[in-house]
């Protein structure tokens, strides 16, 4: 029978520790560190329930395994917990991580992170380097920048989490593809979910976005599939910006100031959704096939993603062919949606050539001016429309 070497650390707190753990270790009680603690590859650090670990600098860096249940990790001016390529044998559950630059950083691997509270960090959790971490039933709140940051081709499972009151974004997906992002709740964030840059094409399904500034923001040629989500009471439910072409299907967008805002050469497919009780259902701004054909390519060359850090010198990472719209006919496709009883009655009355009050497009504002030149604003293809509500089953969402 294998016996692990167990080091019991009792009668603490211990001040100003800096150490590397080279054999299996158990932490209990109260511990404080002012420098980085490293867990070497092959080494298991177990933190007993009820333990309080406080850092006043450095980080807890785990290249081996970490098992922590019911633990509080806190501090000031500390870097947070760094999990380096930890596999599913690393499990953090029912823990609180607070006050760090990045509460938990996951670089690769597939750790299990369950029922955690990530609070008052700059970034609650950052997932990178193709990590397949499982983030389940956690609460991300009051982090000053981002609750959960998913980057660098990471493919985590993200389900059952609450993202509430974070400083800028509840979740930010940057060039990554979560293998699942569903059954989460986003509330009280300036932006609930940001999906940005070419290559960010996740399926976002069955989430609830309530009372955010923007529920979901899709930017810079991202092409997610947004299906079966509930977007309610947001200032803007869904904002599509700079060549973003998501498929928006089967969502319920109700009681938002604007349900969907489309701008700068974004050509989504919007079908099978319910729009009821919004200030406006669909608003087009600076959206023109003519502008895109004339200037889209040039403007994209000047975007942040395609230039050096200080704004000069080309760095072409995505070809223009990949970002060019597939169809440019001056319309945004929003056929087959339920627009609400009053709106549908208006559509029935005025027909496919009418100008529905809930849609603001080129029928209302035929042109816009940019750089001293006038461009026609696109219009919305809204016919045919559904004659019945489509998303009643979404009431069952968390």
């Amino acid at each position, binding site marked *: 029978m294998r016996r692990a070497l167990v080091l019991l650390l009792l009668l603490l707190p211990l001040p100003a520790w800096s150490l590397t753990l080279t054999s299996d270790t158990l932490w209990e009680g109260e511990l404080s560190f002012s420098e980085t603690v490293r867990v070497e590859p092959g080494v298991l650090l177990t933190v007993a329930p009820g333990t309080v670990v406080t850092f006043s600098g450095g980080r807890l860096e785990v290249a081996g395994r970490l098992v922590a249940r019911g633990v509080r990790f806190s501090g000031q001016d500390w870097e947070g917990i760094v999990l380096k390529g930890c596999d599913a044998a690393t499990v953090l559950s029912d823990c609180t991580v607070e006050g760090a630059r990045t509460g938990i950083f996951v670089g690769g691997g597939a750790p299990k992170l369950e029922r955690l509270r990530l609070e008052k960090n700059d970034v609650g959790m950052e997932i*990178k380097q193709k990590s397949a971490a499982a983030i389940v039933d956690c609460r991300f709140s009051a982090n000053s920048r981002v609750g959960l940051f998913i980057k660098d081709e990471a493919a985590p499972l993200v389900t059952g989490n609450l993202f509430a009151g974070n400083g800028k974004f509840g979740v930010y997906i940057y060039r990554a593809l979560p293998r699942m992002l569903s059954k989460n709740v986003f509330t009280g964030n300036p932006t609930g979910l940001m999906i*940005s840059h070419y290559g960010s094409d996740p399926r976002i399904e069955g989430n609830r976005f309530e009372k955010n500034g923007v529920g979901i923001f899709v930017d810079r040629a991202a092409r997610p599939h947004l299906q079966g989500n509930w977007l309610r009471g947001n200032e803007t439910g869904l904002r599509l910006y700079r060549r973003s072409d998501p498929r928006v299907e089967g969502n319920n967008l109700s009681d938002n100031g604007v349900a969907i805002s489309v701008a700068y050469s974004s050509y989504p497919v919007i079908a099978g959704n319910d729009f009821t009780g919004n200030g406006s259902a669909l608003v087009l701004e600076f959206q023109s096939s003519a502008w895109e054909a004339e200037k889209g390519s040039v403007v994209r060359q000047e975007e942040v993603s395609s230039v050096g850090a*200080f704004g000069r010198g080309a760095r072409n990472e995505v070809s223009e062919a990949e970002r060019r719209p597939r169809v440019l006919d001056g319309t945004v496709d929003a056929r087959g949606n339920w627009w609400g009883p009053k709106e549908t009655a208006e559509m029935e009355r005025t027909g496919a050539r009418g100008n529905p009050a809930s849609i603001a497009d080129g029928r209302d504002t035929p042109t816009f001016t940019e750089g001293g030149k006038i461009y026609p604003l696109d219009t919305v293809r809204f016919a045919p429309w559904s004659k019945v509500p489509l998303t009643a089953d979404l009431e069952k969402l968390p």
Partner: protein
Amino acid sequence: MYRLALKTKRLLCLSLLFPLLAACPRGEESGVRGVLLFGEYPLAGAQIEVYLKNDKDRSTLPFAVTSTDSEGRYRLTLPAGRYYLIGKKKEEKAGRVRMLMAECPGNPVETDAAIKEIPPFSLMEMGQSGSLIPDPGTGVSGRIVAAGAPVAGAFVYIYSEEAAGLMGPSYGEAVQTGDDGRFRIDLQAGRYYLAARRRADGSRMGEVQPGDLNGAYPGNPVTVPRGTVSSLGDFPLKTVDGGQRQERLSQGKFTKTKTFFSGRTVDQDGNPVSDVYAFAYLDSRMVGKPSYISDPSDDSGRFVLYLGDGGTYYIGARSTFGGPLEPGEWVGTYDGRPDHGVALSKDQSLPLGDLVVREVW
């Protein structure tokens, strides 16, 4: 009295100059000439860039530049000295842009009293992202290990020469090891240097930190024959030690000198921003590897950017280095001049005031 002193000074200067002038060969040119190839064929319209330093990413402006003629020949007169030559050509065929490039295998090239004939060398095609277009079935493979165990997720970098310390942007795209620590890099036939790193934050680029794994392949340089994937076996990495890193940071471009800029990195409201690096570029485009980098700014936002020499530098600031900007980074430039440039003399220290940085999302 003043005039006499001036004359005396002039005579003194001439007398000092005379031995130097006498030592210079008169009526003879020094420099380089040769032929650039692509494969076996002469390459017309290519560029030869001449550098004084062996700086891998060539972020500094070349000392001299010339082009090849219709037969691929070039000729440059240069003062006697030691130079690094690079051949380049960007060409477009049928809508496809390709970049050809190679370092002169004879670098550094010494010239003295004559035009030196450089043996012909062939440019190689780089991919769109700077990666090489490999020869069929050609490359290297191996396994990254640390303390005898395979290292998953390490990046393996390929360099064509080692003078820059196998740091900075690699010659081709970095390759990442699999779960078993194994890697394979497809290459053109040639001679290469390999380095590998695994950073705690999983990054592909950036300064290695204590605790990261780092190493150069012990068998460098590796010769890769055409049509062969050379097995390198185990390629060991070591954990970066804080003391070693500090020692390295006190050398090279991080050396503390009497020539420096100082300043503060602040946000748009004037609040100090810590952990931001100040960069000095000699190239006004401010791309590639900076010539000098400061330590991260302290809690008050203060930084000191030490320089090796006087000159005009173009100043930027960023919270990380290497790679494109990512959301959440802080970035800014010195805006005392529209081109972000500022001049100072050797052994001069110059306060830059506040560099305003903004968080990019």
